[in-house]
């Protein structure tokens, strides 16, 4: 029957347009990002594959170990999806959590024609399983590059509560392209860690405006560290994913060589800038200090005018 299906798709799109990506759970993001009812989960919560390492710390487990992986459709075409739950253990990579993404990427490499969407929401390595988490990230980075070499498009979406930190930031740097929203953050060391190690003069972790200027979605978009900026709705990320899937080209040595040039130029151009505002001003943005307050649509126009992307050079 087509009538009820259409109704479900319409309802889903309406919900996607009004649902904050930042506020939504990983499961809700997946449900609303993909075509209605198309998602099939692999090793879901009913399999109860929990972390074997939390008991010793007397910590609660989650049945899916904080990541949802599976397959669905995006505008009719098949995609693999992995979505981290940023509220469970900070979305951090543990042994089981990481292995689910590794397996998904290895399958994608073999199939070659189905892209992978990674919805990052992570503080990095899960400390209670630090060695396993770090290794999982290393294996995921390798698996992303092997998949991309086989022709797979790997798109990262970043806009959750835990941001994309630590090893997550390194995996993001391996993706074919990235979409980011205002609440999204991408970095290696977190604000508190920098402050603890180097002092508050180096980085005041409680200065939210500083954190967002340095690591946040708008800055990453203007720097060219992310290719597309979206408003904080699931629909926005769905549109961004579709846009990037249409734009991303094949991976090869030329991309790495172009990235070497891109990053060298960035260092040369902005290596002595003290703050993001200096970088934005150097990019030719007048009233750079107003960038954080720009609404999404105005910011997107501005960013597109500046024109930095990295998808052909990453």
């Amino acid at each position: 029957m087509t009538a009820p299906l259409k109704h479900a798709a319409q309802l889903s799109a309406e919900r996607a347009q009004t649902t904050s990506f930042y506020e939504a759970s990983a499961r809700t993001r997946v449900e609303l990002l993909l075509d209605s009812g198309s998602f099939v989960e692999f090793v879901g919560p009913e399999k109860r594959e929990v972390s074997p390492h939390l008991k010793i710390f007397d910590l609660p487990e989650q049945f899916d170990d904080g990541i949802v992986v599976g397959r669905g459709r995006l505008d009719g075409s098949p995609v693999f999806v992995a979505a981290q739950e940023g509220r469970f253990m900070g979305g951090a990579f543990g042994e089981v959590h990481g292995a689910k993404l590794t397996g998904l990427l290895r399958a994608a490499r073999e199939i070659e024609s189905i892209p992978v969407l990674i919805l990052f929401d992570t503080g990095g390595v899960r400390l209670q399983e630090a060695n396993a988490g770090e290794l999982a990230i290393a294996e995921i980075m390798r698996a992303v590059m092997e998949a991309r070499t086989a022709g797979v498009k790997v798109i990262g979406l970043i806009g959750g509560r835990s941001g994309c930190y630590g090893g997550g930031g390194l995996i993001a740097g391996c993706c074919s392209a990235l979409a980011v929203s205002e609440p999204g953050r991408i970095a290696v060391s977190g604000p508190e860690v920098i402050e603890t190690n180097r002092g508050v003069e180096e980085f005041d972790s409680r200065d939210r405006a500083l954190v967002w200027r340095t690591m946040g979605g708008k800055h990453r978009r203007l720097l060219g560290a992310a290719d597309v900026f979206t408003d904080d709705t699931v629909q926005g990320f769905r549109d961004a994913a579709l846009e990037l899937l249409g734009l991303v080209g094949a991976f090869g040595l030329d991309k790495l060589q172009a990235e070497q040039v891109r990053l060298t130029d960035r260092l040369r151009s902005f290596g002595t800038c003290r703050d993001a505002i200096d970088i934005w001003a150097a990019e030719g943005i007048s009233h750079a200090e107003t960038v954080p307050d720009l609404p999404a649509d105005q910011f997107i126009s501005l960013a597109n005018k500046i024109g930095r992307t990295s998808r052909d050079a990453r």
Partner: protein
Amino acid sequence: MEDLSFQHRARERAGGTRQTAIIGVVASGNLEVLVERILSDAECRLEIKTAAVGFGEVWNAVIVDFVERYSPGGLKFSINDGGARPDTVSLRLAQAVRLIEEDDQ
């Protein structure tokens, strides 16, 4: 951590055709509820792993209330709790039942 287990008779079988549903996230003040339609029509079981130790009585009261109101016959609830308040627990249990009572797509 503390493990708790509860068993109840329900008035009638929970509606709908879905076999499993999941709601919630394990975090401070929150919980996840995995519900599976695997028991006989009048049976209901809840198995809980909770980070808040010593609240068995409170769980009992919340669950008795829940079973009475929703009649979740045939359902097994498996819960990982990060120390949620009773009203959050009630909310999640209700959400879980509502989800599994939907029809399969």
